[in-house]
């Protein structure tokens, strides 16, 4: 469904990605792991159009989407939960959720009611401004906001970053309900254990390249250690 071939990305003169080949199939959950600065978030930025990518390097259902504006790519059904949540501070929790479905016809599975059922903590704080929420609640709101677009593909950037283990567990508990709607999920994670537990396949990035790819059950600790840290 989503595929990259030889994807490169630059920040000015600095090259952050060196020809990434990766794929995400319908209904699949894929994790991208790697150390800080390996290019994981850059990869998501290139896929969502926030960073320019070479023509044809990113394809959705075979059609090139590189070069489209981020808003167009989002409307094709790719939603990003950005690193650091990035809730809109002057919008309430509920408004943050509603803006996730901006300009879309209602009728998809995900709506306010179902997001609140998935994350009951949000329902209690629906009128509160985004920044007043705890980190975990903000993360739930950011995921809920992305779901409100009823995406075919959900991209999650470091959703466990800076959260307590018990909160991370609550958030990952929502993954099966999201998958149940046939949504494909691409997770970028530093938390290897969490990523391996939910992913069907894993890519490990190192210095802007794929250093390892495979199914979690088929990869050994040593392989992952080497691919992650560059032994």
């Amino acid at each position: 469904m989503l595929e990259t071939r030889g994807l490169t990305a630059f920040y000015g003169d600095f090259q952050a990605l060196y020809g990434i080949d990766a794929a995400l199939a319908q209904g699949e959950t894929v994790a991208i792991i790697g150390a800080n600065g390996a290019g994981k978030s850059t990869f998501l930025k290139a896929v969502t159009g926030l960073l320019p990518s070479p023509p044809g390097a990113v394809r959705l259902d075979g059609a090139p989407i590189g070069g489209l504006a981020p808003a167009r790519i989002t409307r094709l059904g790719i939603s990003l939960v950005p690193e650091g949540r990035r809730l809109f501070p002057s919008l309430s929790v509920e408004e943050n959720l509603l803006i996730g479905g901006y300009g879309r016809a209602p009728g998809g599975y995900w709506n306010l009611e179902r997001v609140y059922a998935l994350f009951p903590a949000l329902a209690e704080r629906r009128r509160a401004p985004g920044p007043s929420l705890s980190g975990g609640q903000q993360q739930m709101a950011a995921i809920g906001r992305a779901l409100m677009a009823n995406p075919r593909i959900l991209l999650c950037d470091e959703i466990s970053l800076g959260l307590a283990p018990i909160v991370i567990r609550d958030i990952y508990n929502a993954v099966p309900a999201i998958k149940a709607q046939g949504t494909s999920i691409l997770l970028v994670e530093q938390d290897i254990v969490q990523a391996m537990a939910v992913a069907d396949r894993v890519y490990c990035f190192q210095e802007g390249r794929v250093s390892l790819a495979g199914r979690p059950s088929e990869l050994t600790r040593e392989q992952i250690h080497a691919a992650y840290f560059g032994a």
Partner: protein
Amino acid sequence: MTAWLDALLQGIMLGGLYALFAAGLSLIFGIMRLVNLAHGDLIVLAAFVVLVVTTALGLDPFLAALLAAPLLFAFGYALQFILLNRTLGRDILPPLLVTFGLSIIVQNGLLEAFSADSRRLRAGSIETESLSLGGGLAVGVMPLLTLASAVLAILALNFLFYRTSLGRAFRATSDDPETAQLMGIDNKRIFALAMGVAMTVVAVAALYLGMRANFDPTIGPARLIYAFEAVIIGGLGSLWGTLAGGIIIGLAQTIGARIDPEWQILAGHVAFLIVLVLRPRGLFPRAVD
């Protein structure tokens, strides 16, 4: 005593006109951090558009403004989409330079088209009607309408901002343009719609500008100054603050004029400076900037 009460009343109502001048400026700055130096000239341009509609169709200025509003909305949309969007970015200088240039172009274009003669929008007997409040006090119907229109315009803008899906998109784009794009919001269209809305408010401001006194192509920059002062007194990005700012300038001007007619304009600027010294972020600053 009556004279001072009268000055207070007139000041508050004059504030309505300044708030109308300022609301569009406040809206545009609030949403896209664009300081539109051509705002005053766009008000004058709008007054000429209303004038042309009035004379061409033989209409009352109120009806003419109603017809001009959608034209001005379209003009604002196109201006933002074609020209001003290109100037927005990390650097604040390009929008300042381009709108400064636009100000000169609008002024000279109007001079070419309409000459330097001063004009006026004629509204008939309503211009001189007044309501007696007793005790020797009276308010003109026109100033009252101006203030009422300012309050209505700000109510309508607040409704748009806080009660509609488009308003949420305005606020989200203002908070974080990059993340807003990830919501499927096309920032360029949102900005163009915002300028269209601002020009619609400008149509209302132009109507009262043209009916209150004479206007000619060169008076835009002074209107810009009043609008700026009202926006900054109120606190950047706050619409009710802008109304308060307009009223403070209006009050200062009429009270200044009551002391000595030569002090009218100066008093408004002094009030602005005092607020700037005491509350540099304005009276009602936004919590998030």
